[in-house]
């Protein structure tokens, strides 16, 4: 990527007539000249008395990472000034970055400094502007030299920039820069507020909360420099600004990754997220090279883009918009256009587009969630009708009545008991059918009466063992009943008596239920896959009933093997 950036920069700079280390500045234009190509040579102490040796220059581009080691250097470039000065304006050199101590020489004369070049670590100032009088910048060739003492290994990380031009134009440039910074920050703040409002007031979509955090962090990143300037903190030492910016950037990328992983249901999220966090925060604890940051950038990009492509492949709503937004944000504009002063709106555009595409993606997801919710409601509604009818509908009732007819002929006394069990089951179902949650004790009662009735019908003995410590805990109705019906259908041989167990255990705020039986027909079920059994209406009902009433607060799994049919349901209080 850097190589490409270098070439692009090279060709673009050709047209800027700024090849090599010599620049031409026309006093009659309003342009600001970006100075990026210098010559450099490494020097030994004592620094002040050291004069550059004209034979030892090497080429240096300040946009390039990383090319200078620790130590002291001379940087030099030449400016050919043409035209004449306009009135009441001075020329200035604005230096951002170069996070080290330095002294500026203009035509061999010191015009300014940053920190004390001779003393050991001394605060370096993040942004400096040095002025040149009209007489100092008369038409002709001039020499700009910077004596640089790098004592911080992170020197080359910051986007250094040296700009030359009329002071008023530098100020205008800064104002324009701040205007766009503030504007973009405003977009992010608005996005954050909207997301927070949507989260608190609407669906509690986790994506909203994460994106609100992303937006706030971004807003703050855009406000950093305007705030520093507004509060007149320009003497704030360089490394504090850089550290803050790096930290915000790290948090920003972690949040973006979290957002994509969570919202677009990327698989293996529990493994990926900690790895990502670790990789991201590592440089905040250890001194790592610049290439680590490059690696981090590629790692995060690869993770996000491949995750989103995977989501598109899996038809997760909004993933196309998210991919577009994230790709725009990930484009390394600074590298691609290194050395070129881009118009401010170009620098703000990726962020604004990113916000737009992510909000678009989230609204697509919300619409999808809404559709799924409607669908779930509809299914439950149908299932409920189906289930209600299951006991009042012909086949259950008719079969039961047919069986009762036989009992009346053969064993009239048992028939009376049988009818009583049928009546009991109806009474309980009518009582709970319209409730959304019922005490577990009522559900157990229903199961017991169902098993009694089915014992009559199948002429076997089905028993129910229960271990319930908190009978008043609530569950959606007819869940256990449905599971027991399911078990009766699949787990027992004709004429086989059997036993069901319903157990409840309370662990902190989680109530665990297990429903099991030991039916002899399970052996023959062995070759049927779990999925095949899952297809049944019964398990679907249980799942959608749990989903509808206590969405997100339950766990539901089951296992069937040749000895045990068991269903586990955990419900958070």
């Amino acid at each position, binding site marked *: 990527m850097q190589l490409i950036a270098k070439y692009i920069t090279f060709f673009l700079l050709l047209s800027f007539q700024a090849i090599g280390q010599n620049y031409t500045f026309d006093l009659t234009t309003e342009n600001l000249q970006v100075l990026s190509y210098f010559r450099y040579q490494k020097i030994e102490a004592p620094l002040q008395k050291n004069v550059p040796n004209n034979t030892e220059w090497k080429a240096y581009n300040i946009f390039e990472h990383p090319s200078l080691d620790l130590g002291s250097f001379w940087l030099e470039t030449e400016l050919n000034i043409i035209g004449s000065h306009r009135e009441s304006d001075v020329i200035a050199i604005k230096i951002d970055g170069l996070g080290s101590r330095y002294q500026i020489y203009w035509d061999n004369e010191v015009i300014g400094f940053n920190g004390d070049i001779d003393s050991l670590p001394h605060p370096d100032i993040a942004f400096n502007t040095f002025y040149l009088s009209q007489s100092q910048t008369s038409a002709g060739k001039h020499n700009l030299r910077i004596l640089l003492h790098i004592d911080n290994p992170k020197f080359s990380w910051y986007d250094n920039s040296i700009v030359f031009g009329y002071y008023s134009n530098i100020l205008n440039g800064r104002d324009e820069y701040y205007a766009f910074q503030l504007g973009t920050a405003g977009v992010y703040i608005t996005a954050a507020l909207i997301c927070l409002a949507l989260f608190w007031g609407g669906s509690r979509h986790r994506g909203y909360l994460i994106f609100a955090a992303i937006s706030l962090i971004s807003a703050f990143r855009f406000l950093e420099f305007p705030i520093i300037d507004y509060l007149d903190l320009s003497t704030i030492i360089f490394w504090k600004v850089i550290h803050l910016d790096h930290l915000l950037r790290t948090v920003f990328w972690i949040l973006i990754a979290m957002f994509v992983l969570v919202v677009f249901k990327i698989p293996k999220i529990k493994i990926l997220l900690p790895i990502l966090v670790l990789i991201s925060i590592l440089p905040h604890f250890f001194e790592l090279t610049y290439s680590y940051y490059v690696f981090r950038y590629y790692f995060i990009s690869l993770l996000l883009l491949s995750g989103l492509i995977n989501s598109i492949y899996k038809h997760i709503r909004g993933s196309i918009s998210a991919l577009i937004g994230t790709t725009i944000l990930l484009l390394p504009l600074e590298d691609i256009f290194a050395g070129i002063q881009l118009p401010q709106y170009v620098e703000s555009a990726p962020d604004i587009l990113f916000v737009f595409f992510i909000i678009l993606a989230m609204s697509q997801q919300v619409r999808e969630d809404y559709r799924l919710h409607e669908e779930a409601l509809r299914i439950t509604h149908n299932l409920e009708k189906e289930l209600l009818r299951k006991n009042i509908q*012909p086949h259950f009732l008719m*079969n039961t009545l*047919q*069986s009762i007819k036989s009992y009346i002929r053969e064993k009239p006394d048992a028939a009376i008991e049988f009818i009583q069990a049928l009546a009991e089951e109806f009474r309980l179902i009518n009582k709970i059918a319209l409730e959304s949650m019922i005490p577990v004790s009522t559900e157990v009662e229903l199961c017991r009466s169902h098993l009694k009735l089915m014992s*009559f019908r199948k002429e076997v003995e089905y028993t129910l063992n229960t271990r319930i410590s908190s009978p008043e805990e609530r569950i959606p109705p007819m869940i256990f009943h449905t599971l027991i019906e399911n078990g009766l259908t699949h787990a027992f041989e*004709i004429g086989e008596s059997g036993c069901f167990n319903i157990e409840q255990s309370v662990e902190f705020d989680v109530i665990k239920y297990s429903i099991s039986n030991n039916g002899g027909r399970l052996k023959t079920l062995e070759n049927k896959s779990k999925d095949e059994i899952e297809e049944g209406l019964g398990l679907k009902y249980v799942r959608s009933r749990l989903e509808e009433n206590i969405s997100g607060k339950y766990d539901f799994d089951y296992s069937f093997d040749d000895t045990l049919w068991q269903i586990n349901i955990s419900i958070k209080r």
Partner: protein
Amino acid sequence: MNILIVEDEPPIARDIEFICREVLKDKLETVTLQGTLSSAKKIIMDHKFDLCLLDLNLNGENGFSLLEDITTESFHTVIVSAYTEKAIEAFEYGVFDFIAKPFDRPRFEKMFNRYFSQTGKNEATTKYLSYRKKNETHIINIDEIHYFRAADTYVLAELKNGNSALLNKTMDRLEQILPDRFLRIHRSYIVDINSINSFGHDAGGKYKLYLKDNTELPLNRKVYKELSSRFHK
């Protein structure tokens, strides 16, 4: 008469048996009760049955896959089920009757009367016939059938695509479950009226029937007269 009852609820199975004994009296030779289709299938291999009374919902087994299976057998199948909404579909698979639960004795009497009356053509709505080939059950839509031809005690269904399928039913039993438009033109032939082209008799006085694809089939004299009055009015 040998009856097979496939029912997973013993009280109901005994009730069916009780009613069968009451209605059939001496005509009933044996009654076999089975609770699952797999055990029923084993019994079918070793015993000859004349009628199978089948519950559609056997302990979680899919009623229709077993219906496709059981209708390949030579005997008639009568569904005894509470799933009345499945009756129409059951008839399409060529069941002889569908008795809804809870049932009573008159309903069984009606079914047995029709079973024993040879001429008693009903409003059969059979759409599919199943047959067994290489131990697999196949389904044919009866619209694909050109005509039926007796082959020993079985029936060969000649299909419009030139293939044929061997059905494990007698001509008499097949006739009972076929819709009205299928006509028994001869002791050994049943044709779809819609595929008849012409009929008549040759110089030797033999009655012949020609299908639209010029297949020539023998025609029973009685049926010839019936057809003549029907088509030449």
